[in-house]
């Protein structure tokens, strides 16, 4: 690379000399005098320069693209580049035009070791995701992600294959774009930025798993505005949850109430649609303040009454210097749960009326060398998947769950941009059997 580009005269001569010595005629090289050889080299170099210049003109004509970095409208005011033997083409320094199609991927391989129960240790190909982005034209692109969870998906295996994102985005104006298809819901800090290189800790935080499901996506239409004052506005209409599939006999609903009734656009019931909106402000470098709201009926005319699911969040992230500080609060409610729960009485997991969670997190980039970066972090979180139940009468109304508190202490070690090794220790206040040590390897590009 260096030899090819560093200077014009010398590498060219060297290359030509090598070509002559190897490829042309051994007899010639042996018989020609040094002066003759040098003269011929100069002649060839001059011819090569002329060919390069012609090639550049031809390519310029063929591409016929409106140049951004070469003077067009104000050409008269700009003197031509000084003639120089070191400028064979008019190509500027920047890279090539962007490719229309780009592949992307992220993945997580995790190891969980419960400290009180080593026999339950597990290693898992948690997520393997392949995606692509393709531009149809200047303003229109498709974005997709296809995910395999837990390594193998079959009737006898625990894995799942999921389409995580598949939407078309059309730029309407410099500030506004519209998306249609299957997209991520803009709630919280993690859901839209869920790649392992984007969050601290081996596992995603509990609040943005149990209360805000992740990776949470819906089908619909979404408008995105990026305003010059630092505000990003997102709003849309989409599919929502399905309360009719609440499984009161399992504990799934107590682990993540909304995670157990999301539809993921898999033959999603769509009589009732939801609306959502999010507002984020990043007007001060390093600071993000925002919030989001999602609300919609979730019974689709198939239950004894209507039940509306509403979830909102407020969040902040501040990254002064080497610090990365984050805080989030989220709360969800489901309406008419008394009527919805009546036929389910006797089962272990009734539909909660409310659930919430919050966390604060601090990370510090302690050490860097070239692309290596070590960032220890500490996260405190509290969440309750059944904060309250609607009154069903004495002796029948379930007791609210106790809030779980989890402290996570660990570090992300960036090997290079896009590759991360993680390790952490998690301590639970309520369910002490869940205390564990985690190790993880992740990538994203």
């Amino acid at each position: 690379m260096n030899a090819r580009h560093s200077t014009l005269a010398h590498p060219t001569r060297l290359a030509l000399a090598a070509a002559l010595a190897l490829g042309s005629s051994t007899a010639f090289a042996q018989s020609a005098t040094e002066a003759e050889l040098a003269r011929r080299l100069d002649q060839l170099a001059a011819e090569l320069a002329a060919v390069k210049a012609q090639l550049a003109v031809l390519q310029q004509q063929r591409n016929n693209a409106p140049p951004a970095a070469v003077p067009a409208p104000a050409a008269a005011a700009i003197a031509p580049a000084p003639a120089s033997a070191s400028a064979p083409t008019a190509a500027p320094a920047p890279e090539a035009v962007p490719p229309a199609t780009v592949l992307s991927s992220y993945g997580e391989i995790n190891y969980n070791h419960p400290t009180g129960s080593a026999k339950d240790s597990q290693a898992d190909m948690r997520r393997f995701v392949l995606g692509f982005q393709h531009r149809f034209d200047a303003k229109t692109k498709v974005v997709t992600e296809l995910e395999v969870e837990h390594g193998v998906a079959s009737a006898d295996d625990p894995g799942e294959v999921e389409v995580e994102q598949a939407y078309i985005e059309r730029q309407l104006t410099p500030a506004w774009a519209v998306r249609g298809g299957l997209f991520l819901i803009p709630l919280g800090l993690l859901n839209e930025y869920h790649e392992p290189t984007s969050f601290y800790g081996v596992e995603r935080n509990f609040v943005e798993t149990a209360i805000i499901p992740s990776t949470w996506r819906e089908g619909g239409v979404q408008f995105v505005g990026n305003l010059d004052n630092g505000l990003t506005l997102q709003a849309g209409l989409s599919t929502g949850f399905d309360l009719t599939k609440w499984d009161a006999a399992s504990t799934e609903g107590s682990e993540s109430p909304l995670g157990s009734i999301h539809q993921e656009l898999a033959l999603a019931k769509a009589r009732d649609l939801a609306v959502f909106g999010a507002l984020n402000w990043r007007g001060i470098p390093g600071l993000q303040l925002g919030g989001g709201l999602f609300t919609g009926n979730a019974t689709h005319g198939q239950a004894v009454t209507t039940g509306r699911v509403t979830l909102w969040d407020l969040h902040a992230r501040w990254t002064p210097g080497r610090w990365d500080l984050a805080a989030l609060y989220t709360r969800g409610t489901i309406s008419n749960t008394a009527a919805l729960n009546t036929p389910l009485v006797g089962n272990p997991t009734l539909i909660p009326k409310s659930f919430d969670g919050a966390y604060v997190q601090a990370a510090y980039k302690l050490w860097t060398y070239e692309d290596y970066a070590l960032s220890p972090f500490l996260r405190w979180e509290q969440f309750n998947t059944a904060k309250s139940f609607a009154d069903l009468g004495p002796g029948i109304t379930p007791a609210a769950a106790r809030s779980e508190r989890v402290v996570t202490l660990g570090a992300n070690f960036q090997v290079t941009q896009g590759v991360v090794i993680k390790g952490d220790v998690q301590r639970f206040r309520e369910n002490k059997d869940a205390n564990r040590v985690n190790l993880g390897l992740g990538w994203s590009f």
Partner: protein
Amino acid sequence: MRLAVLAPAALAALAAAPSSVFAVDYLSADQAAALMFPDADRFELREWNLDASQMQALQSQGVRARSAHWTARAALRGTNVLGVVVVDEVIGKFELITYAVGITNDGAVKQIEVLAYRESHGHEIRLPAWRRQFVGKTAAAPLRVGEDIANISGATLSCSHVTEGVRRIVAVVDLARKAGALPS
């Protein structure tokens, strides 16, 4: 960082200027240059090549040289050189970000302008508050996200790559001036 599926097509167009056709173009290179040096009465294109020792010097500063061939616009008023403007492109997450860096004669960044941004996230790098962080930085500054440049949440790659690009341009212009390839 990523795999360009249609690389041959991109290579075929290599000799062209950076594409201005994708997504949102905010400024042309000439508009950006005029914005940065409003006192200039003309701009002259200057081209130069880094030699092997200069490439090594960059490497030793922790700067990936990327290309040996460089182009800048010298801002002139009469015979006085006011500074230079370098237009460059870096990859954000999936797509190219086109930006311009104006550098004064003392090697300090005068202004950054984003000419085109194509990613779905991270438009905030266009905000004056983020770009102002670079003003006055020289080749002696760290010019690193998480050091002297604050990140934008959700646009880490765009921030990192533009910052890395500015660091490269400041170092390259510094070297070119010392070697006499650029006026100072």
